[in-house]
């Protein structure tokens, strides 16, 4: 995966997903064959029962069965013996029924295992691949769209392979076997029966191809209706504030009635389709009934054969009626496969082939951080940061001051390689090693970063804090939480550290989230720590408490502080002032004060504002 990523074609992607499923599919098809065969033997038993046990025709059994029966029946003939022991036939059917049931179970269960394994493969592969895709890819693609690909499209591919393809195979088996038994009894009657196949398949395929568009139109209009409801609910404040309830009612009503009408007329069409389908197969049955009777009267067909033939005919007609629908639905899967392929073929994050070892990276991260002539923009022509040259000595605290959009966060994205710095755009080294030569994973593990709007996973608070290390003890978790001053707040929750947060649980306030994220970062004991405006939602007092606790536990870590608060920045060894992506001031806090530049202005404003404003 680290080197050249092979691109999937549709076939190779399907083959890739099918790993570990194939044998279950094969087993399922074998079982299906057994199931059908056993089911088809039962009419044969009935036929001989009617013709030779009740009637007087010779038994005409396979040699081994004949011999076995003769031994059992001796001294009387097999026929006579069976007439006296009819329960034997019942037992035989019972045995066959047991086999049918067993094989049916086997067919469905192995198919279900195969299908679920396939679905599991698809979603796990997708999830793993998405995790490895670069951050830039995530920024470019819409979340909703990706989720749709991972859920509905994956489902459609599963249905295509595990249901539609499998049912085509099964239908072919059923048709083949029933035709075989029919032809073995009377080829002329079989030919007549078989004539109906192209008619029914053609009729149903034609119909489905014709109305396929109507289904899509219904789906589309359901989507529109659903959107109207959705927008009405999310915009409920706007609706009420403008007093537009009546307008909304009419809008919904119009689409509601239109959509319902579409479905009802489609249902009518479907009802006609089913009806005519019933009629055609009914006619076919009538034809067989009449012709069969005629053949019987002429003596070319026995009563038992006739009965058996009618059973086979029913077994033939049912799958034939399914075939047209399945074929017409199969075409839809191609699009879904394409949409999944788009994700699977997006290139994952790559490290250089000759990346340095983990030990070397760990060692290097204890060194100075150096930006050399760094220029970068997300879009080619729009630079975000330009001519950045700076050195952050190991173990020092480095402050960054700058307005929103000045490029502070971009520098941090480059530092932990959320965005890759192209070679010609400068170099970032840590401990003398170019970060591009490190493995992204090793680099990031050594840089603890707290984001301004931290993301908490929807699980318990303790799981969130210990996300990087499952084996973390409760003491370690609580210690980190204490340093981040969030321990007390957590204990106030009913379930304490076991409180589930996020989507499925309680919502934390901005400040609680930030502090939990700080605790989470602290547990990694990284040699480089970055606080990207990560105390903005915490009040000044708590901010001070956290900084005090932090300074005690940070040890010899290199710390980068991005903040708007002068009091926070004041304790940095060095401060850089960033404006429109360029360094405008740099130096120790004292030096910057003397410079009388932006820092000094803000310093004055924040610390001596009182006189200005209240005057």
């Amino acid at each position: 995966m680290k080197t050249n990523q092979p691109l999937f074609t549709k076939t190779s992607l399907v083959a890739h997903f099918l790993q570990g499923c194939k044998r279950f599919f094969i087993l399922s098809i074998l079982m299906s064959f057994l199931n059908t065969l056993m089911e088809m033997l039962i009419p044969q038993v009935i036929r001989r029962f009617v013709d030779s046990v009740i009637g007087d025709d010779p038994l005409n059994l396979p040699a081994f069965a004949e011999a076995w029966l003769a031994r059992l029946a001796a001294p009387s003939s097999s026929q006579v013996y069976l007439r006296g022991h009819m329960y034997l036939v019942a037992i035989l059917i019972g045995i066959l029924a047991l086999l049918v049931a067993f094989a049916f179970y086997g067919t469905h269960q192995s198919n279900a295992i195969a299908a679920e394994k396939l679905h599991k493969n698809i979603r796990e592969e997708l999830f793993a691949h998405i995790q490895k895709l670069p951050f830039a890819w995530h920024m470019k693609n819409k979340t909703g769209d990706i989720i749709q690909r991972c859920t509905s499209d994956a489902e459609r591919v599963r249905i295509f392979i595990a249901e539609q393809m499998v049912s085509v195979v099964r239908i072919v088996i059923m048709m083949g076997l029933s035709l075989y038994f029919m032809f073995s009894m009377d080829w002329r009657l079989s030919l007549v029966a078989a004539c109906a196949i192209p008619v029914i398949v053609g009729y149903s395929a034609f119909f489905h191809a014709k109305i396929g568009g109507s289904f899509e139109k219904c789906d589309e209009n359901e989507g529109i209706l659903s959107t109207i409801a959705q927008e009405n609910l999310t915009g409920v404040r706007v609706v009420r504030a403008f007093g537009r309830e009546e307008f909304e009612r009419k809008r919904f009503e119009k689409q509601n009635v239109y959509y319902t009408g579409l479905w009802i007329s489609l249902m009518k069409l479907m009802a006609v389709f089913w009806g005519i389908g019933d009629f055609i197969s009914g006619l076919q049955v009538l034809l067989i009934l009449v012709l069969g009777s005629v053949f019987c009267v002429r003596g070319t067909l026995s009563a038992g054969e006739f009965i058996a033939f009618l059973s086979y005919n029913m077994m033939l007609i049912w799958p034939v009626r399914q075939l047209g629908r399945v074929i017409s639905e199969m075409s839809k899967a191609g699009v879904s496969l394409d949409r999944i392929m788009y994700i699977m073929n997006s290139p994952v994050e790559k490290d250089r082939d000759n990346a340095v070892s983990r030990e070397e990276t760990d060692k290097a991260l204890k060194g100075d951080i150096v930006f050399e002539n760094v220029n970068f923009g997300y879009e080619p022509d729009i630079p975000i940061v330009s001519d950045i040259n700076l050195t952050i000595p190991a173990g020092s605290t480095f402050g960054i001051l700058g307005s929103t959009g000045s490029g502070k966060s971009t520098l941090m994205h480059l530092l932990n390689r959320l965005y890759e710095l192209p070679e010609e755009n400068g170099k970032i080294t840590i401990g003398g090693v170019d970060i591009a030569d490190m493995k992204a994973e090793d680099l990031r593990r050594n840089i603890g970063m707290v984001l301004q709007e931290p993301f908490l996973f929807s699980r318990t608070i303790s799981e969130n804090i210990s996300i990087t290390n499952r084996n973390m003890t409760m003491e370690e978790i609580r210690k980190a939480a204490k340093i981040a001053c969030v321990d007390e707040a957590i204990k106030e929750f009913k379930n304490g550290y076991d409180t589930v947060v996020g989507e499925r649980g309680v919502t934390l306030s901005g400040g609680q989230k930030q502090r939990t994220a700080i605790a989470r970062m602290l547990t990694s004991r990284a040699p480089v720590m970055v606080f990207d405006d990560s105390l903005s939602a915490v009040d000044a007092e708590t901010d001070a408490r956290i900084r005090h606790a932090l300074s005690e536990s940070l040890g010899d870590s290199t710390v980068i502080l991005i903040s708007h608060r002068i009091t926070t920045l004041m304790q940095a060894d060095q401060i850089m002032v960033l404006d429109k992506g360029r360094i405008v001031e740099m130096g120790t806090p004292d030096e910057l004060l003397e410079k009388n530049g932006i820092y000094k202005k803000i310093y004055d404003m924040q610390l001596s504002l009182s006189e200005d404003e209240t005057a």
Partner: protein
Amino acid sequence: MSEIETTKEQQQYVSLKYFGIPKLGPYVKPLKGIIISMACLCLVAGLIDTLHPLFQQYALNHFVELSTLDTLVPFILIYLGILILQTIVNMISASQAGKIEMDVSRDMRRASFNHLQTLSFSYFNQNSVGYIHSRVMSDTGRIGGLVSWSLMDSVWNLTYMIGAIAVMLIINWKMALMVLVIVPLAALASVYFQKHLITLNRQVREINSQISSGFNEGITGAKTTKTLVAEDRMEEDFNKTSRKMFKTATRTSHFRAMFISTITFTSYIALALVLWRGGRITLQGLMELGTLAAFSNYALNLMEPIRWIVRAISDLITVQVNIERFTRLMETESDVADSPEIIEKYGDAFHPKKENWEPLFGDVEFKDVSFMYPDGDEYVLEHFNLKVPQGTNVAIVGETGAGKSTLVNLVCRFFEPTSGQILIDGRDARERSQLWLHSNIGYVLQTPHLFSGTVKENLLYGKPDATMEQIEAAVKAVSADAVIERMDKGYDSDVGEGGDLLSTGEKQLLSFARAILADPRIFVLDEATSSIDTVTEKLIQDAIEHLMKGRTSFVIAHRLSTIRQADVILVVKDGKIIEQGRHKDLMRMKGYYYNLYTRQYAEETTRSLS
């Protein structure tokens, strides 16, 4: 996480009287005729199905046994007649079922949607959009399916079963009784398996939603995951859910396959019994061959209907949840409702009587107002008094989540005071209709909401009859003309679902213009310019000052520098008003506002300096 699941599971078991069917009365009653007709047709269809084996019986007994074709033509004609009847019955009953399904769900969707238009905000605050949306869009569909297709299946199959049993009893009651012994066994097995299937299907749905949110988290949390190098952990956890899905899904299929296998097996056992006993009787000449064949046919096909009936019953059980949730929505009463007398005079939300509406001037007064949110347990306002004469500019400040919107919600009558009064133009707000008040309010939200459609359609939302000149003037007033010029089709450009094609700032500008166009007497700006750049914000500020003259306005401010000129500033903390006054007074107090302001001002300055 497991805790949440179990509570969710428990919530799904509900017991309604008579399976909640009486609750569906209003939606089912208008369709009584067609439902009865469908049921009758299904009855006929079931009976025709019972007739089919008799043709085979006749063919065997008459043509084959007697070796004659004398009645072949009437045989064909009768068969054709029945076939045509069956085709017609099937067509009509199926399209009727389709109509019933769609009509019931349409009426339920309409009723729930309209009811939602009258519910107060406490309902929307307590229930997520996704949850409410499912009530309108999916519960209704499932209930519609129950009263049509499930009903059809049960009538049809029940008729067939009864018919088949009757014919069997007539042919040979002893043999029929023997076969009937198996029916309860098959029924018991069906109930057993279906019970498991109901629970398992629920679990599958629940895990399915976990998988979706797993994907959601894996994608929206990508930045954090990468920063923490937690990819492996995320993948492991996702795969755990994925494996759970595999297990549950295959377990479900196990029961389903066992279910069908059992039915198949019992069917063949019935057949075997018939052949055994019937063979003997036939051999003795007491029964004709065709009759034996028909009898076998009935026996073989007797069990399958049980499966369908049990399935229909299980549909009835699973839909209970949907019925319950739907009824709960319909039975929710609005906390804020106009009294019958008020509706009589001023009209309701859908039928306003504008001719009776008095003009609104914009005097607002809080008179001894105490307020507690319906889902809260603490007063957020206690004995609050405030006079806001027409034309006053009120600013509300405080941290995110401090409860700034409460006052605005009360002014807009989205909520009503727990005690005390809010006077509009000197009269209690409750003395006029909600729509009267709302029609005079212009509301601009921080998270602006646009509807799918064009820019123009959105601007016209508050004043459908505005002229193009009026629209352009409103757009100019908020400097949104540049935004509209930039779009390829100008005013006719599509804004996308929920305005998705525009940036938040652009949406704020348009919703601002929309509010101005409506020409309201009371303006509410809820952090309305937070995503607009500083230069434009300044332009808007100037325009607003001009626009607001004579109008009462409530401004929830994000940037404190923008509200220094306000006539009165209310400072909110933890849901309560802790300070109140003009900017200068508040700064002098050196209290909470002072802190808030100094901190913010510093950040503001950093921004404006760069």
